[in-house]
C-alpha cells in the first residue's frame, strides 16, 4: 500500500529546511505558528494597555497612536486566526498525526507537502513585511469590510501608502493556497493509505475531525478567494465591485467573507474536538462515549455550518427575512456541539481519571468552551444581537470559544504528543503551573468584557473619552482588570517555553507508549524514524479499547494481535 518512499535525507538542508518528511513539516508549521502567536500576543498587549491606560506610554513600545491601534487590532485578529490557529491545530497536528494514525510511511504527496509549507512560509514573510512598508500594515479590521478596505474614499488611492493592505490580501491568498495544497494531502492519505484492517470506523476521532476540517475549508474558501481578488482590484485598479457609486455593493463582500468565515471557526474547532477525544479516552482509561454519534453529529454540524453565516451580518442591512432563517440555523447548530460535550462528560463518567497536564487542558477546554457556546446562542438570536453586535460582548463570546479551542486545545495537543515527537517527557510541574495561571488569567481578561459589552462598550475604539457613559469608574476598573489579567497570562507563558526547551534536552526519555494509549502512533519509537513503521501494521480493532472487561491490561493497542 505504500508508495515509493524517498530515501532518508542526510544533509541539514534536506533534513530540516527542504524536508518532505511529514513530521518535520509538522514541526515547521508548529514553530511558525508559535512564533506568530508571540507577535499576535504582543499586539494584544499593545491595545489592551492603551484601553486600560489611555494615552500613556506603553512599556517596551511607547505611545500608541490611533492608526497604530487600528493596525494592532486588525493584525491581531488576522494573525491569530490564520497564522496561529490554522497552522498549529490543522497543519502541524494534521501532518504529525494523520500518516502515523493511518499506518502510512508519510503523506501521499511528500513533495507537495513541502511546497505547501513553502508557500505558507512566503505568506508569513509577506505578512510580516507589511508591518514595515510606508503606511504600515493593514488597518481595516481582520474582516476587511469595504468601502474602508477598498480604499474607495477620495484621496485614499495612494498605491504606496496602501501597500500594507495589498500585501495583506496577497498574504492571505497565498495562505489559503498553501492550506488547499496541504489539505489535499490529508484527504488523499486518509482515503487511500490506511493500513490493512483500518476501516473508517476504526480510525481515531481526530483523523475524522482533521479531514472534515479540511473539507469545510476547501468548500468554503472559493467564494472568499474570488471576493479577495475583487477587493484587490478595487484597491489597486479602481474597479467598483464593492463601490455603490459605480454600481457595486459592499454587502457582497460581507457575504463572501462570512460564507467562509463561519465554516472557518469550525475548521479551527474540529481538530481540537479530535484532540479532546484522544486525551479524554486515554486519561480516563475508557472508550469514547458514542464514537459514531460524535461523528454523525459532527457531519451534521459541518453541513449546517454552511448555512449560518449571516448571523455576523444581522445589523448590516441584510433582508430581515433572511435574518430569521439564519437565526434559526444558528440556534440549531448548537445542538451537535452540545451532544459532543455530553459525550465528553459521559466519557469521563466513572473513569479511572488521571489529571495529567493534557487532561487538565482538555477538561479546561470543555468547561470554558461551554461559556463561549452558550453566549453564542444569545448572539445567534437576531433580536439580542441588534443590541450586542459590535460590542465587547461579541469579543468576549468569541474569545471564550477561540481561546479554549486554540490555546487550551493547542497546549493539550502539544503536551500530549510531545513525548512522541520529541522523544522526551515534558515536565508535569511546570505544565501544571502554566495551565492554572493561564486558565485563571484568561477568565480574568474576558469575563469582565461581557459586562462592559452589555454596558455599551463598542468594539474597535481607540479611546472612549468621547462617551462619558463609557468612562465611568466601573468601566475603567473592568478594563484595567482585564488588562492586568492579560499581563499575568503573558507572564506565565515563559513557563511553557522553558518546559518545552528544557525537557527537550533534559527530560526523561520517552518510551514508545508512555500513556498506554491505543492508536498506531504509540506503536512506533519516540520519535518515529524516517518511514515511521518498519513494516506495514495490521489493525484488528478500534482506537478506544480501554478497560476492556476480561483483559488484564486496561488498554489494547490497535495493532496488537491479542
Amino acid at each position, binding site marked *: 500500500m505504500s508508495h515509493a518512499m524517498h530515501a532518508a535525507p542526510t544533509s541539514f538542508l534536506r533534513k530540516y529546511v527542504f524536508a518532505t518528511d511529514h513530521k518535520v513539516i509538522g514541526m515547521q508549521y508548529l514553530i511558525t505558528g508559535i512564533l506568530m502567536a508571540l507577535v499576535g500576543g504582543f499586539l494584544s498587549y499593545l491595545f489592551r494597555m492603551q484601553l486600560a491606560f489611555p494615552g500613556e506610554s506603553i512599556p517596551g513600545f511607547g505611545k500608541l497612536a490611533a492608526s497604530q491601534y487600528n493596525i494592532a487590532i486588525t493584525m491581531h485578529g488576522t494573525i491569530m486566526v490564520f497564522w496561529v490557529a490554522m497552522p498549529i491545530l490543522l497543519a502541524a497536528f494534521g501532518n504529525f498525526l494523520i500518516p502515523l494514525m493511518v499506518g502510512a510511511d508519510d503523506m501521499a504527496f511528500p513533495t507537495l507537502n513541502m511546497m505547501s509549507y513553502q508557500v505558507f512560509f512566503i505568506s508569513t514573510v509577506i505578512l510580516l513585511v507589511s508591518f514595515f512598508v510606508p503606511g504600515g500594515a493593514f488597518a481595516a479590521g481582520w474582516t476587511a469590510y469595504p468601502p474602508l478596505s477598498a480604499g474607495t474614499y477620495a484621496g485614499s488611492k495612494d498605491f504606496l501608502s496602501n501597500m500594507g493592505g495589498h500585501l495583506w490580501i496577497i498574504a492571505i491568498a497565498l495562505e489559503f493556497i498553501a492550506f*488547499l495544497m496541504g489539505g489535499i494531502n490529508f*484527504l488523499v492519505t486518509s482515503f487511500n493509505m490506511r493500513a490493512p484492517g483500518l476501516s473508517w470506523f476504526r480510525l481515531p476521532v481526530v483523523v475524522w475531525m482533521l479531514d472534515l476540517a479540511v473539507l469545510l475549508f476547501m468548500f468554503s*474558501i472559493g*467564494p472568499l478567494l*474570488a471576493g479577495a481578488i475583487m477587493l484587490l482590484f478595487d484597491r489597486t485598479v479602481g474597479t467598483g465591485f464593492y463601490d455603490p457609486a459605480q*454600481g457595486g*455593493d459592499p454587502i457582497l463582500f460581507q457575504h463572501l467573507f462570512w460564507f467562509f468565515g463561519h465554516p472557518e471557526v469550525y475548521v479551527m474547532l474540529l481538530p481540537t474536538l479530535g484532540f479532546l477525544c484522544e486525551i479524554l479516552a486515554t486519561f480516563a482509561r475508557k472508550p469514547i462515549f458514542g464514537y459514531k454519534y460524535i461523528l454523525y453529529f459532527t457531519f451534521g454540524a459541518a453541513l449546517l455550518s454552511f448555512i449560518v453565516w449571516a448571523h455576523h451580518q444581522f445589523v448590516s442591512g441584510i433582508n430581515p427575512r433572511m435574518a430569521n432563517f439564519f437565526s434559526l440555523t444558528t440556534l440549531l447548530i448548537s445542538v451537535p456541539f452540545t451532544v459532543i460535550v455530553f459525550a465528553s462528560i459521559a466519557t469521563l463518567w466513572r473513569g479511572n481519571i488521571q489529571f495529567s497536564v493534557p487532561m487538565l487542558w482538555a477538561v479546561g477546554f470543555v468547561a470554558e468552551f461551554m461559556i463561549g457556546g452558550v453566549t453564542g446562542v444569545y448572539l445567534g438570536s437576531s433580536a439580542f444581537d441588534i443590541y450586542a453586535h459590535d460590542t465587547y460582548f461579541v469579543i468576549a463570546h468569541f474569545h471564550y470559544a477561540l481561546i479554549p479551542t486554540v490555546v487550551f486545545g493547542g497546549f493539550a495537543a502539544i503536551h500530549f504528543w510531545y513525548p512522541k515527537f520529541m522523544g522526551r517527557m515534558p515536565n508535569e510541574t511546570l505544565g501544571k503551573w502554566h495551565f492554572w495561571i493561564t486558565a485563571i488569567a484568561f477568565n480574568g481578561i474576558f469575563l469582565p468584557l461581557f459586562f462592559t459589552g452589555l454596558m455599551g462598550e463598542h468594539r474597535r475604539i481607540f479611546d472612549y473619552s468621547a462617551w462619558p457613559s463609557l468612562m465611568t469608574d466601573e468601566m475603567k476598573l473592568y478594563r484595567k482588570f482585564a488588562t492586568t489579567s492579560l499581563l499575568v497570562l503573558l507572564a506565565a507563558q515563559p513557563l511553557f517555553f522553558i518546559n518545552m526547551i528544557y525537557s527537550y534536552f533534559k527530560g526523561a526519555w520517552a518510551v514508545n507508549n508512555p500513556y498506554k494509549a491505543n492508536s498506531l502512533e504509540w506503536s512506533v519509537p519516540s520519535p518515529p524514524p524516517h518511514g515511521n513503521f518498519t513494516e506495514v501494521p495490521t489493525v484488528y480493532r478500534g482506537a478506544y479499547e480501554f478497560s476492556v472487561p476480561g483483559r488484564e491490561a486496561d488498554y489494547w493497542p490497535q495493532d496488537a494481535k491479542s
Partner: protein
Amino acid sequence: MSSVATNQKVEFGRVPLGRIAMWWVIASEVVIFGGLITCYLLYRIRYPEWGHEAAHTNTWLGALNTFVLLTSSFTIVLAHAASTKGELKKVWLYSLCTILGGFIFLGVKAVEYTTEIHHGFTITKSVFWSFYYVMTGLHASHVIAGMTAIFVVALKARKGEHLHRVEMAGLYWHFVDVVWIFLFPLLYIAK
C-alpha cells in the same frame, strides 16, 4: 496497486493517488471560479442593462475560442488514450496540438482585449467590464498554467516516463475548458 480491467468501476479507495488529488484540486477550483461566477450572476440579474454592455463583446471570437478549447480538450484526451497504449509519439503530438490550441485561445483573447480597450471598454468602465476582465483574466491565467503543466508532462512522457501524468494534466485542462463553457454564454450571449 493491482490493475483493474477496462470498463470496470474503480473502488473509491483504489483511485490512483494522483487522479484523486487532481479531482480535489478541481473541486476547490470549482468553488473559486464558481464564487466569481455566482457574484457575476447576482449582479447580472440585478442590472438587466448589462445586456447592452455585453453586446460589445465579440460573440464570434468568443465562439471561436469555445471551439478551440473544445478541440484542445479532444486532443488532450487523445493524448491520454495514446499514453495508455504506450504510443509515445502520439502523446507528444497530441500534447503539442493542445498547447497550440491554448496559444490560439490566448491570441484571440489578446485581440479581443486590445479591440475592447481601444474602444474605451476598460476594466473600470463599469462593473460589467470589471467582471469581464477579472473572470476572463483569471481563466486565461489558468489556461497558461494548464499549458505549462501539459508541456512539462509531455516532455517526460515522450521519453516514456511518468505516462500516468498525462491524464492528470488533461483533467486540469478539461476543467479549464468547462469553466470557459460557462463563461462564454455568461459574457458573450444574452443581449
